[in-house]
């Protein structure tokens, strides 16, 4: 007797037990600790915090461990947790100009006030696999110098003093900042929401979109005005206290692109901006984000809109890897009801096609016979 | 002057009371003309009925601008209670309100003064919550439309007397329009914009 498949609940439980074993791997190998992930896979933690939009190294490390190193899965875990957290309000805007800079490079000027600081970077490493890292590697102590007290103004501010770059539009005092996790995104979207979407967006997607602008699909002549990475203070203005309370410091990467100038009969020409910001050290992400931000400003700046990266609805609707992976992977779920429906229709259409062909051929056959 | 400690309380069990109240309102909206009862009770400030208070605690928060008619806003207790328990901002401009609380239907402003939504976003409209005398006695009305199996009959004693005539503008405005929730003590009846109401035999 045929019996419909049962026992799905057992199957799920067993699958998850198997997953737990696969995650742990060979138990004779030492288990990886959250500290180890946080300290030694720091850039993975930074990415999970950025795209998970939750600044918590420990939870991000846990998510990476739980996700067996699948970063999109880890981002998903962090997001799902974040969605359950109560919301007290928005912090004061952080001042990246006052960042305690660990790394800072500009491609637009040879030297800048506060200096170019290479910091910890893969740049100029030769990509040769290093067998000495395989085990027991103890790095040479870092070079130490006098801490500089010189201010490190943002390069775009230097350009801005001479009016060479557009001013960053200032929000009205008390204006609320959009939050696409609290209000559904509508199009056209304002820049605050676009930037939030990009900051949460998939690094790979933004990289490809940014790259496409460089190859001519919506070219916007970018110069890396400045990329800086370091610590900034976060403050929260509590209504009942009456002043801003420091919450602590976080690590951020900021990229300001200096782009193709605009101008008109009534407006002096000046450079335009693209902006990128992410938690931790996330240079590829912020540079890509800045390129895409600038591309999405095409309409606002009166440029022709045609390239994929300039298409706001396209970019913002497809940037989120948690949404994307869910929908792509949902094809794994049973669809046999729809498939049966298609199958039935297809069989019917094929039958009718065969009948029609037979009919069409029949008179020919008779004609031939008559000849 | 009432202090916060003296304000009438909210729901005893916030989670389950809100759920139960919502189901009553949802059923009312899904079955226009049917009288639904609000079971969970909360404290009621001044002019506010039990049903109104429960709906406020269930649906209002920081994201829902509120407009109050003169009868509702004349009581500082109502204002304080709403602010304390829901956090909803009270706005003077009825055309941006998500909800309007009407204590005195006789003085209901022209319906055009509320948000009617747009054809693109007809959901961006004001929901009117009107306190009425009775939802089980009074004039007889016939209701037709989605949610109603043929015809529904409603007995109600309401102000303004011409409320349903005024709501006929929903027919031409649709999908824009105004949804109304009538409250009499713990009884609730909804008249969504898709409902057509006729007075029965005068």
């Amino acid at each position, binding site marked *: 007797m*045929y019996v*419909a498949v*049962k026992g799905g*609940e057992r199957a*799920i439980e067993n699958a998850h037990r198997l997953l737990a074993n696969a995650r742990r791997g060979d138990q004779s190998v030492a288990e990886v600790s959250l500290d180890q992930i946080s300290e030694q896979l720091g850039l993975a933690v930074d990415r999970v915090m950025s795209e998970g939009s939750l600044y*918590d190294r*420990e*939870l991000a490390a846990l998510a990476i461990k739980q996700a067996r190193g699948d970063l999109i899965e880890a981002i998903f875990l962090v997001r*799902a*947790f*974040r969605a*359950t957290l*109560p919301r007290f309000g928005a912090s004061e805007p952080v001042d990246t100009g006052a960042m305690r800079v660990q790394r800072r490079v500009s491609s637009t000027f040879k030297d800048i006030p506060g200096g170019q600081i290479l910091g910890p970077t893969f740049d100029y490493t030769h990509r040769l696999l290093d067998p000495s890292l395989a085990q027991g590697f103890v790095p040479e102590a870092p070079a130490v110098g006098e801490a500089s007290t010189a201010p490190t103004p943002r390069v775009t501010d230097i350009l801005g003093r001479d009016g060479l770059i557009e001013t960053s539009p200032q929000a009205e005092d008390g204006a609320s900042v959009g939050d696409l996790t*609290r209000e559904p*995104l*509508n*199009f056209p979207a304002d820049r605050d929401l676009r930037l939030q979407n990009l900051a949460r967006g998939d690094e790979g997607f933004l990289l490809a979109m940014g790259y496409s602008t460089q190859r001519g699909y919506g070219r916007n002549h970018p110069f890396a005005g400045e990329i800086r990475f370091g610590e900034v203070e976060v403050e929260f203005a509590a209504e009942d206290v009456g002043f801003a309370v420091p919450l602590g410091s976080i690590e951020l990467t900021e990229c300001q692109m200096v782009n193709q100038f605009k101008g008109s009969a009534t407006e002096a020409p000046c450079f335009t901006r693209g902006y990128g910001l992410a938690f931790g050290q996330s240079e590829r992400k912020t540079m890509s984000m800045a390129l895409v931000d600038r591309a999405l400003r095409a309409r606002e700046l009166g440029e022709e809109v045609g390239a994929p990266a300039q298409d706001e*609805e396209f970019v913002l609707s497809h940037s989120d890897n*948690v*949404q994307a*992976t*869910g*929908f792509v992977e*949902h094809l794994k*779920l*049973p*669809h*046999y*009801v*729809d498939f*049966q*429906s*298609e*199958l039935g*229709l297809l069989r019917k*259409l094929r039958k009718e096609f065969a009948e029609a062909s037979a009919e069409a051929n029949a008179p020919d056959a008779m004609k031939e016979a008559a000849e | 002057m009432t202090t916060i400690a003296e304000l009438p309380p909210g729901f005893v069990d*916030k*989670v389950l009371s*809100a*759920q139960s109240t*919502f189901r009553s309102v*949802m059923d009312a*909206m*899904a079955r226009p003309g049917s009288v639904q009862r609000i079971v969970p009770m909360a404290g009621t400030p001044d002019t506010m009925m039990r049903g109104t208070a429960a709906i406020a605690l269930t649906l209002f*928060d920081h994201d829902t601008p509120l407009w109050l008619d003169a009868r509702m806003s004349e009581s500082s207790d109502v204002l304080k209670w709403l602010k304390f328990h829901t956090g909803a901002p009270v706005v003077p401009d009825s055309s941006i309100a998500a909800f309007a609380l009407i204590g005195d239907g006789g003085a209901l402003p022209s319906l055009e003064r509320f948000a009617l939504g747009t*054809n*693109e*976003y*007809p*959901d961006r*409209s004001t929901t009117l919550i009107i306190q009425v005398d009775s939802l089980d006695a009074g004039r007889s009305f016939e209701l037709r439309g*989605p*949610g*109603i*199996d043929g015809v529904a009959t409603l007995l109600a004693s309401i102000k303004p007397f011409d409320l349903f005539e005024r709501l006929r503008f929903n027919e031409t405005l649709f*999908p824009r329009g105004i*949804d109304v929730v009538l409250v009499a003590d713990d009884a609730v009846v909804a008249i*969504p*914009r*898709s409902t057509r109401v006729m007075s029965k035999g005068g």
Partner: protein
Amino acid sequence: MNAPAYNFAYLDEQTKRMIRRAILKAIAIPGYQVPFASREMPMPYGWGTGGVQVTAAILGPQDVLKVIDQGSDDTTNAISIRKFFAKTAGVATTTSTDEATVIQTRHRIPETSLHANQVLVYQVPIPEPLRFLEPRETETRRMHALAEYGLMHVKLYEDIARFGHIATAYAYPVKVNARYVMDPSPTPKFDNPKMDNCPALQLFGAGREKRIYAIPPYTQVVSLDFEDHPFEPYRFNAPCALCAAENSYLDEIVTDDQGSRMFVCSDTDYCEGRQAAGHHGALSAAPYKDKAQEASNG
């Protein structure tokens, strides 16, 4: 570490309020897709997050919940969602369509007629019926605003010109209350007539696309068609092999590598109920293979 603590039915109260307001608007404007601030759920987008959020916003301790996927209570995703609510809301669950007060579904409408004290919650992947004709939401929103649905009719007509039939077998578009064209979610068109004048409230949740829409009870729902090409629900040639039902939607089961097939009800609760009531199909008494052998031996 910030150890998580979860609310009744998982969602926090502020989120429930937001969803509840959207549901009320959806009921008031039948077939219109209300945007809502869909939350990240602890299950992937595309796996029922919209339906789960709608269910979480309406569910109370007195409810009895049924969850089906492809018509069956025992498919893995249905089990997973049912367990989620049993755990987070402690509600009673059932596989019986009749006993349930809230039914969450993916891809089917139960065969058993629904009654007035029920809510049917659909999981919706793409809520926009015009999406595959015009991908831009700015455009489709305008079309809905103007009730400009010519594009849809052109598409259906092109099908007829090419195939002789409207070549849409599931997610077959409907018009609700003579105003909005609506996507019924990817249910087979076989189920479309069940939506019309249904005594139960029907709610649709699309989590990834952040939309909620509704069909109030007793509302007219018409499948789009043409006078000379009227809507035809899909029909099967044979009754269910297990319960002999002649008017249910059937799954095709491939039974061996020789191309043998059997057809059985996709609605497992309906099928089991009929069998318990003494209805037996051609293959319900003996394993299919034995039957087939008997047939070849005889």
